[in-house]
């Protein structure tokens, strides 16, 4: 647990510090993610040290945004005005993003002859 937690927190800490110091638009934890990828490439042993805890975090990812989600109670007035247009933008944009992303992936896969693995 400690052996896994330390690399995750260190990557986040360095990510936060660099992101603030250089005024990057990238949130610290995202920079930490990139550092962790570099770590996996440099030290093969790191992967199995981090894996159990990282899988634990990812398995309960949705629990972690409950506290922020409850903050919607502070926005109810505003949402009674802007809720409908926001919802329309959100739903249409999600449908468009799935459509464009999937068609682009499939088209480029055909052009480059990239086939799916049989798994």
């Amino acid at each position: 647990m400690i052996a896994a937690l330390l690399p995750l927190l260190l990557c986040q800490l360095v990510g936060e510090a660099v992101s603030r110091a250089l005024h990057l638009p990238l949130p610290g934890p995202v920079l930490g993610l990139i550092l962790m990828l570099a770590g996996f490439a440099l030290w093969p042993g790191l992967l199995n040290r981090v894996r159990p805890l990282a899988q634990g975090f990812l398995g309960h990812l949705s629990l972690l945004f409950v506290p922020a989600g409850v903050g919607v109670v502070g926005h109810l007035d505003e949402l009674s005005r802007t809720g409908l247009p926001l919802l329309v933008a959100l739903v249409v944009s999600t449908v468009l993003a799935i459509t464009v992303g999937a068609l682009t992936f499939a088209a480029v896969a055909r052009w480059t002859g990239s086939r799916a693995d049989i798994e």
Partner: protein
Amino acid sequence: MTDFTEIWSYLSQGPLLWLTATIAAYGLGDAVYRASGRKPWVNPVLIAVIVLGFVLWATATPYAQYFAGAQFVHFMLGPATVSLALPIWDSRHHVRKALLPIAAGLLAGSATAVGSALGLAYALGIRGETLISLAPKSATAPVALGISEALGGSPTLTAVLVILTGITGAVVATPLLNRLGLKDWRARGFAVGVAAHGIGTARALQVNPVAGAFAGLGMGLNAVLTSFLAPAVLHWFL
């Protein structure tokens, strides 16, 4: 009765009560989700948010007091974001075999998600903090909250928009992609992961394992790309 009032005022000042309530509400939401046969529109986070919102309202508890306890859960978003390196690393052999389709699908899907959401909301009269909060809606929650905060949006509003985006993606993906006639599970899963993050990925995993792996990859890569795209695209609308 005064005993109860005393105990309540003691407990409601410390972090234990609201930390426990957060875990309990999520447990309840998860139980309902399982009982429904894991229907994508029965979302455990949405249930937990509604239950806790009602409890806060009924007990006249300010959000700041609730958050003093719940912040211990909230803090874990950072290490969880770093943990996303794991599924990306695990799918590196997929990346090597389909580098160009992945890069093209990621750019097109991510740009459409940010651009069309901001364009539509702007056209419908949404401005300021609310518009900023919408920009990272397709990124996975921990990253989206960080982006929203850094750009001057409201992380709490972003959290709700991210959840609703995930539910929308999970519900529409299968009928939409069938209508488009797409049979490549990589393309289907990847696009859903890019547009609808973890909730979409959970849905893709139920449908097909290849789609699930590509959805996880799409979610992880889009978390990184949205951090760059959201501020750039938002710049045009402010």
